């Protein structure tokens, strides 16, 4: 261990700084060189070497704790009176030569993002804070000894202040700046690559832990996003696992503030910066204005993924095709590939929501690409975030984004085209240009065969907008006009007047009007107007992007218009809130499946409409598509033509053959009238009336008659499944009892179809005996 002090003191305010070295139980190595040696003071035991190196020392008889050592140094050398600033360091700390230059401005600022200075709330800083607290209160703990030392620069006037040295958790206040070169990523990686962290087990453990923690923090958002797709509850757990412990640490070392719940987002950015500096590249910290973007994007994705939007006209057939493994067009092929890879159909309650998972996933990709576009066009990220947040609040926008179809996929491919294209132009990168071309082809293949004017119109809009952005970046906006003419005409021909304009046209038209004020956006205006007439997911995304560009342009002209921009965005959001997503629960396919399994003959086949077909098939119900053949038992939401057997909300099970003998109550009434007079049958007047009225299944009555030959039978009630309450079907659930329940059970077990009951269970009122519906049609024999 050598003693040295290399005088590398620069001119400047270093003369105002005294360095107080706390030796504790450590040996003093290299003295800090940020100030002249005569401004270095050391407190501790056995300080001959420090004295020999030129430092002024105060030797103590025993190891003092931190506060006592600082106090001893301040008193012995009257530092507070002689110097405006005091830098307190632990022995062994190596201070970056540029530290004072970085730290001086920070004394006047509450926060810092400078990597040379420990950032408040960052993981290393808080780890240091924790160990600092341990070191102060429990000097004997090895963990305190093994923790990286730190340095603190304080105004002398602040020493003794609660934010000063007596308050170890108070980092980066206006009076104190803490620093530790070990937290400088560039220094860390230099030491790491040079193997200089291997010699000390503590240092090695610290280094490995820091790298692992950084990797985990970078991977964390990806894991959360993946879990959000697979199981939202698991995603919440993954968020909580990181956020809650992190917040607890914040509570330990800092102040209680709700804003600390957002620190993990910052830690993700810091970890990314830390890992990026592996190759020695100068870390470029992420501006804090980006913090809003993931929050807004998450809000939009959440709103879209959880919106209960009724199926679009094309959705059910698309979902059925994907579930059946068919791929009639490129959109269905992508849906089939996605659901196969993610096993989405097995994870969701309905095949529709499973298919819409792809819509949410496409939106995630779209928002990532939009972030890249925002950065490449140098649009203020908080402005884009604000627009996305407003979109998330807008009911019509969510309604347009949630359904699966060509729209969300085209939006995704086009956003990737825009991001890759802009990056290719900005960096003159051919590979990125190839990516842009590929994604553009994917967008075309997705949208054009779909055949809908919406998709084609919106595609045209988006392509022109992207071309506009690309050309604007390339400073060739002058050629935009001629290029825009042809797609505009094509869009007019394709879109008009297939679909009525929706409320989404309002913000789109407003954005188009605003675009008139921006020269390089003017060629886009007519195309956006056409797109406003078509609607769909691409229009929402294009409008959002256009509004963000316009607001950013406005801020360029009038930087003080921040409040106005925010109010405008919130106003648009408020309009959207007024028009919430139109939610309507779909058919309860599980109830239909449960009813079918319990009440239809085992070989019966239901004919189901598109959308419900895949749900019922997944539920294990024999089901046929309505397009395959005329149905015998038909599920329909239309006015039933035939006899309704059961109802599930808007959907009914219908028997087209209204003249089916089973539905004729006449023969049942004849038999029931005789059974009602059976002297061994004991029943209420209500039950006897049901028998006489022909409202009880003939098989059930035959069993009753057979039972009455040998037993006295109490028939408590007759009934039928709840979903059949409005149908003309007879009661086929009997609740009965006899004096010998064992004999009753044996008697029932001996029966054979069609008289054998399909369901026998004991209830408080007796034994409930039920039968399935008999074969009612040619396909249910």
């Amino acid at each position, binding site marked *: 261990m050598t003693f040295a002090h290399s005088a590398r003191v620069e001119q400047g305010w270093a003369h105002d700084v005294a360095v107080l070295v706390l030796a504790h139980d450590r040996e003093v190595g290299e003295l800090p060189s940020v100030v002249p040696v005569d401004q270095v003071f050391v407190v501790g035991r056995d300080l001959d070497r420090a004295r020999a190196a030129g430092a002024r020392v105060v030797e103590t008889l025993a190891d003092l704790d931190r506060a006592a050592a600082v106090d001893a140094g301040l008193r012995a050398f009257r530092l507070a009176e002689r110097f405006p600033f005091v830098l307190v360091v632990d022995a062994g700390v190596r201070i970056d030569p540029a530290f004072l230059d970085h730290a001086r401005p920070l004394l006047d600022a509450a926060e810092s993002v400078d990597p040379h200075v420990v950032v408040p709330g960052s993981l290393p800083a808080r780890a240091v804070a924790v160990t600092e607290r341990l070191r102060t209160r429990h000097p004997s703990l090895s963990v305190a000894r093994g923790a990286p030392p730190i340095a603190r620069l304080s105004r002398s006037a602040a020493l003794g202040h609660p934010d000063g040295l007596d308050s170890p958790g108070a980092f980066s206040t206006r009076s104190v700046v803490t620093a530790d070169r070990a937290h400088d990523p560039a220094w860390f990686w230099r030491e790491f690559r040079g193997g200089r962290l291997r010699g000390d087990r503590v240092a090695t453990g610290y280094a490995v832990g820091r790298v692992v923690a950084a990797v985990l923090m970078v991977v964390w958002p990806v894991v959360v996003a993946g879990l959000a797709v697979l199981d939202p509850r698991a995603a919440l757990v993954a968020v909580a696992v990181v956020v809650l412990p992190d917040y607890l640490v914040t509570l330990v070392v800092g102040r209680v503030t709700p804003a600390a719940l957002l620190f993990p987002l910052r830690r993700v950015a810091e970890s990314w910066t830390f890992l990026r500096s592996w190759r020695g590249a100068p870390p470029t910290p992420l501006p804090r204005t980006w913090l809003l973007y993931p929050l807004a994007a998450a809000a939009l994705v959440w709103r879209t993924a959880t919106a209960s939007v009724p199926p679009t006209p094309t959705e059910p057939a698309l979902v059925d095709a994907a579930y059946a493994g068919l791929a009639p067009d490129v959109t269905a092929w992508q849906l089939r590939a996605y659901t196969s890879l993610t096993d989405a159909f097995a994870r969701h309650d309905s095949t529709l929501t499973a298919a819409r998972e792809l819509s949410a996933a496409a939106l995630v990709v779209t928002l990532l690409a939009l972030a890249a576009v925002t950065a490449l066009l140098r649009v203020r990220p908080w402005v884009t975030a604000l627009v996305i947040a407003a979109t998330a609040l807008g009911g019509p926008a969510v309604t347009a984004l949630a359904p699966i179809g060509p729209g969300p996929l085209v939006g995704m491919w086009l956003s990737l085209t825009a991001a890759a294209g802009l990056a290719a132009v900005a960096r003159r990168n051919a590979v990125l240009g190839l990516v842009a071309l590929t994604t553009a082809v994917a967008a075309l293949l997705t949208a054009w065969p779909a055949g809908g004017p919406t998709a084609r119109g919106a595609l045209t809009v988006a392509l022109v907008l992207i071309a506009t952005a690309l050309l604007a970046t390339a400073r060739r906006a002058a050629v935009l006009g001629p290029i825009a003419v042809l797609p505009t005409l094509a869009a007019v021909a394709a879109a008009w007047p297939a679909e009525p304009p929706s409320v989404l046209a309002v913000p789109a038209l407003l954005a188009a009007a605003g675009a008139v004020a921006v020269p390089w956006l003017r060629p886009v205006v007519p195309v956006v107007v056409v797109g406003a007439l078509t609607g769909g997911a691409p229009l929402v995304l294009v409008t959002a992007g256009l509004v963000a560009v316009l607001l950013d342009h406005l801020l360029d002209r009038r930087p003080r218009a921040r409040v106005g921009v925010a109010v405008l965005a919130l106003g648009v959001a408020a309009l959207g809130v007024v028009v919430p997503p139109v939610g309507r629960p779909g058919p309860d396919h599980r109830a239909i499946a449960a009813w079918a399994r319990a009440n239809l003959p085992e070989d019966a086949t239901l004919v189901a409409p598109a959308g419900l077909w895949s749900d019922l098939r997944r539920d294990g119900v024999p089901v046929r598509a309505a397009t395959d053949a005329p149905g015998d038992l038909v599920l329909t939401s239309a006015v039933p033509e035939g006899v309704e057997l059961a109802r599930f909300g808007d959907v009914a099970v219908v028997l087209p053959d209204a003249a089916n003998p089973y539905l004729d109550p006449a023969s049942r009434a004849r038999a029931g009238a005789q059974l009602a007079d*059976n002297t061994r049958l004991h029943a209420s007047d209500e039950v006897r009336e049901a028998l006489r009225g022909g409202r009880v299944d003939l098989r059930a009555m035959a069993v009753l*008659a*057979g039972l*009455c030959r040998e037993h006295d039978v109490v028939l408590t009630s007759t009934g039928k499944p709840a979903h059949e309450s409005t149908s003309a079907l007879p009661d086929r659930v009997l609740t009965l009892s006899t004096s010998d329940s064992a004999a009753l059970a044996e008697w029932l077990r*001996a029966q054979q179809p069609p008289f054998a009951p399909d369901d026998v269970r004991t209830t408080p009122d007796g034994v409930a005996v039920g039968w399935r519906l008999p074969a009612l049609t040619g396909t249910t024999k």
Partner: protein
Amino acid sequence: MRSTALLACALLALLVAPPAQAASDCYLRLAHLSPDTPPVDVTVTSFARPDWSVTIKGVAYGALSGYQRIESGTYTVAMRPAGADPASAPVISATLDGETGRAYTVAGLGKYANLALDVLADDITLPPANQARVRVVNAAPLAGGLTVKRDGAPLVEKAAFGVAGDYRLVAAGRTVLRLTSTQGALTDLPVTLEAGSVYSVLVLEHDGVLSAEARQDAKGAAVVPTGGIETGYGGAAWTWSPALLALAAAAGGALVLALRRRPA
């Protein structure tokens, strides 16, 4: 004393026994036409009167009982293996909705694995003059699609196993019915079809050999008399209508009271 009273009741009951054909009656007979099904006991039970039932014991393949007159109404038809404990649970196999004046055959048709008791509506109405009514019941699985010809003219074509065909009107007189199975096996059945009669031609199979027999269902306006049916539950070869039972009970009661008041 008691035995005297009971005897008096019985005599009185016989005195008020119903006529041979009540206005609300229908006719029922049973047929065992499933070749691989063991003999069964068949019980017919009224929906309205649990104490009234008819049991036909040990009906074996090919057996066709005579018609039994029963009160019109709804019945369950249940089976037990022949000789089974009467207290054991019967297997309900069919229901019968008997209408007044109609005749029915409850037939076990098909193979044992898919055995079902079918209620066949028998047409016992009087055929036109000089004609008879004939139907074919194919109870021989080997026969496959059975064809029956009379004097070379097809009477029935491709009658499926386990199915009772529709009645056909034919000219009365002596004739030979030629039965042809799918395999080409031939069986000739010489019969005399009386004018005004109704026949069921049963096609059976014993040890792989086809046989046929014509059973007269009705002659003139009357069904063929009963025979071979045993009654259960104190049984009834005739109908005990509630009114007659009440009358008999009242008469018996009066007689008992009269005997009790006599000095010993």
